[in-house]
């Protein structure tokens, strides 16, 4: 069996190809294969999501599945969990042919999956979400005691005070919601567990707990597939790694035998250049100034100044109030007190005004507020500014598409074209579409909330390059229109301007290395209070972390 799968893989010059023989020598590997997929292919219309993919996971093994956005990782595992029917391919579970017709059959067969996009029923309680679809019942009447007991057992592993069986899921923080999904997979018991980017909104503590749980499941002989864009995570938790690119397996090897760089270059198919490019930036005039800003609950007090040509990072813990700060600035939350000055405009303003004043927000919550999922890529990119796509205020689809195509190319958004609906894009590509909107609108102040969450290494590198280019006014993003000048004429006047103005970026992120990499200055938010800003060459990660935890 092993030979057959291996022979399908493209020959590669990386160490992945060479170490393969070791597999059988490894004591753990000699265990029986729990899950095997072979020759799996899937097309969505013209998109080839998977082509002749095979993977194999043994009992007690963690297989990491990595690849760029849109490589087909989620699609492959959805085939395994019965959510998608493959066009071709076969699967075996513990040696027996396995062909789930729907997710229920897969769950019954012992395959549990944690999906990339949160899949919870927000109106229902934690315990109901955990047991949904598998409620113990007698004659159709649910045995609530058992439901509760099993839910409690599943959530006690996390020891998170927010997670109580009766809590309504819509009131939980995103991180806790993610835990509910994980608990769901644990509660029903499974032999094969698939985790699709489970850590993208977890705190470090929760990640640690999750890894402990994975370790325990491994000992129990479960087979685990782990999808992540964090190579460090993969190196820490996985035994073996399989790399997908454009719907094909391009290599697979023991984690110990391959370096991070090798994994990355396999994913991308080329060497990734410098991750954090940094051109000389010139801080210009102040474009955003806030003073002692407070929202309804958080932030409690925030002051900062942001200049043109500058990237200011906001670090902090999940739940510290960073998102709320951006939302206050953008008029999505009421301002309780404090002063905001954006360019020449003072005071709070509605989002409509903010767009007109030259500020744009990239929401951390792409699915619920960042994008209109059922609309096309072009509609999403041009949504905030539908001017200039035709005479008399008409919006001509052709011109919309033309404007959009530029960004598809510039940001390397993988899709069939401007008219594809955003809902059918992979997670990372959706994020790029959301980013393209800000660029299309040509805002001067970019408020970015977790801009690289859930996007792959190559896309991250691209995002950093882009942010750098924006801040330096560089070539990477040539202007469609003359660069905005903050005062009101920017929307009416077609003042030709020979130079591209650098932009100002305010960026919230939980991923410290990227803040250290792209920002000029960082401020840390802790319990709703924004600390002083530090120049990036004057702090290190450790100090920032201490500040974030309030020590």
């Amino acid at each position: 069996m092993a030979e057959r799968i291996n022979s399908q893989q493209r020959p590669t010059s990386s160490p992945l190809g060479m170490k393969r023989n070791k597999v059988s020598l490894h004591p753990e590997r000699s265990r029986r294969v729990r899950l095997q997929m072979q020759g799996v292919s899937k097309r969505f219309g013209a998109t080839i999501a998977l082509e002749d993919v095979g993977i194999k996971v043994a009992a007690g093994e963690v297989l990491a599945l990595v690849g760029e956005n849109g490589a087909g990782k989620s699609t492959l595992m959805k085939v395994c969990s019965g959510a998608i029917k493959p066009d071709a391919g076969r699967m075996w579970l513990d040696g027996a042919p396995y062909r789930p017709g729907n997710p229920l059959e897969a769950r019954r067969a012992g395959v549990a999956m944690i999906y990339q996009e949160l899949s919870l029923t927000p109106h229902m309680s934690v315990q109901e979400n955990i047991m949904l679809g598998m409620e113990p019942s007698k004659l159709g009447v649910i045995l609530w005691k058992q439901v509760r007991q099993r839910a409690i057992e599943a959530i006690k592993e996390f020891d998170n005070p927010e997670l109580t069986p009766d809590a309504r899921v819509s009131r939980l923080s995103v991180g806790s919601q993610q835990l509910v999904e994980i608990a769901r997979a644990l509660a029903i018991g499974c032999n094969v567990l698939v985790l699709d980017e489970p850590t993208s909104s977890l705190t470090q503590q929760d990640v640690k707990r999750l890894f402990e749980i994975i370790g325990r499941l491994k000992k129990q002989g479960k087979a685990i597939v782990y999808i992540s864009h964090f190579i460090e995570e993969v190196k820490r938790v996985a035994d073996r790694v399989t790399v997908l690119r454009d719907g094909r397996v391009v290599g697979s090897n023991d984690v110990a035998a391959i370096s991070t760089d090798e994994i990355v270059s396999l994913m991308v198919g080329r060497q990734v250049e410098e991750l954090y490019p940094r051109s000389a930036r010139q801080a210009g005039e102040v474009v955003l100034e806030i003073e002692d800003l407070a929202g309804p609950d958080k932030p409690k007090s925030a002051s900062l100044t942001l200049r043109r040509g500058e990237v200011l990072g906001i670090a902090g813990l999940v739940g510290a109030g960073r998102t709320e700060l951006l939302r206050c600035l953008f008029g999505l939350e009421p301002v309780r007190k404090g002063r905001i000055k954006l360019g020449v405009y003072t005071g709070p303003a509605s989002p409509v005004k903010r767009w007109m004043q030259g500020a744009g927000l990239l929401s951390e919550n792409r699915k619920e507020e960042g994008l209109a999922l059922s609309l096309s890529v072009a509609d999403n990119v041009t949504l905030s500014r539908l001017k200039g796509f035709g005479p008399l205020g008409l919006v001509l689809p052709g011109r919309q598409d033309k404007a959009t195509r530029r960004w598809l190319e510039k940001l390397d958004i993988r899709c069939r074209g401007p008219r594809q609906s955003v809902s059918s894009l992979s997670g990372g590509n959706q994020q790029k579409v959301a980013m393209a909107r800000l660029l299309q609108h040509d805002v001067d102040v970019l408020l970015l909330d977790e801009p690289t969450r859930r996007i792959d290494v190559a896309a991250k590198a691209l995002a950093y390059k882009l942010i750098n280019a924006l801040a330096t006014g560089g070539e990477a993003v040539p202007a469609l229109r003359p660069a905005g000048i903050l005062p009101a004429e920017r929307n009416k006047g077609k003042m030709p301007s020979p130079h591209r103005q650098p932009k100002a970026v305010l960026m919230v992120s939980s991923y410290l290395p990227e803040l250290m990499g792209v920002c000029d200055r960082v401020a840390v938010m802790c319990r709703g209070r924004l600390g002083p800003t530090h120049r990036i060459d004057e702090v290190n990660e450790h100090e920032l972390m201490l500040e974030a935890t309030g020590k």
Partner: protein
Amino acid sequence: MKKKKSGKQPFDSAQGEERYVPFMPSGDEAPIPNSQFFSNWRRWLNTLSPIIALFVVFELFVLIAPSSFATARNMEMIARQTTIVGVAALGMTLVIISGGIDLSVGSIVALSTVVIAWLLRYAGVGPLTAAIGGVAAAALFGLLSGVLITRLRVVPFIVTLGMMLVVRGAAKGIGREQKIDVDPERLRWLEELLASVPKERNWMLLPPGVWIMIFLAIAMAALLRYTRLGRHTFAIGSNEQTARLCGVAVERVKMLVYTLCGAFAGLAGVMQFSRLTVGDPTVAVGLELNVIAAVVIGGGSLSGGEGSILGTLVGALIMTIIASGCTQRGYPNWVQEIITGAIIVIAVALDRLRHRRTA
């Protein structure tokens, strides 16, 4: 509801010694504001708020309407008048919780009366068989809606809009575009379902039809709370995709939900027939809107996932109270309509407000 009071910060331990930090640790999860008392209090307020609203509306009319308003007689009448909408609304609650809607309810009520009359008159069956026949025919059309919605993947609004016309047409066809009269001899208890309680049976307090509604309401509330079908209905309305991924048999649940809704509409038809004592294919035009209004006033959300039987019944009662109060006060019909319309909007707005505050 046991919640650990967070004396110490939950995530404060163990950072620093770890080298690998993909995400920052959390030391600042939102504090838990609710003490047990507070959260219980809030929960009670949430359950009781429809009843409070009902009380307020009722008291309002007691104040402004003539003194006859608060009498037992009048209350009985209000209960009786609520029954038709109330019974139909039980099924509609289920449909709305599942995120759907059923516009064919009014037509199904009419069809049910016609079928019952037809059976009594031409098939020579007893009242019980006739009533069952009426409900069965109604359930069948409900099932048909369900099948169309799940198989053709057409949205419920469109399917049931079509069914509204189809069923109305069918009712008219059966009745040859006329009412079907029934020999009063054959009606027996069917006639008394909603008649006011005679003196010698005062112990009944309420007419049998009202009792039927109450028992069914309790049964439905239990179904929603305690059975898989009920919880899966909520799950589908809350997030259909998730429900499917979790192995909920979405199609089957939906079909059941629409069948049940049809059956309840059929039963409402039995009540309607009991009032009219003839099968009338043109009765209950637009009734579905009252039914939907009752559910919505009672806290049902048209986007699914929310709604309760208690709320629905209260919603139905509020509408009857307004109607009856206005009549007794001698307000013309148009005033009544404006008030009802306003109440619908206000009720839903209040509900939103409450949600925002507790969210």
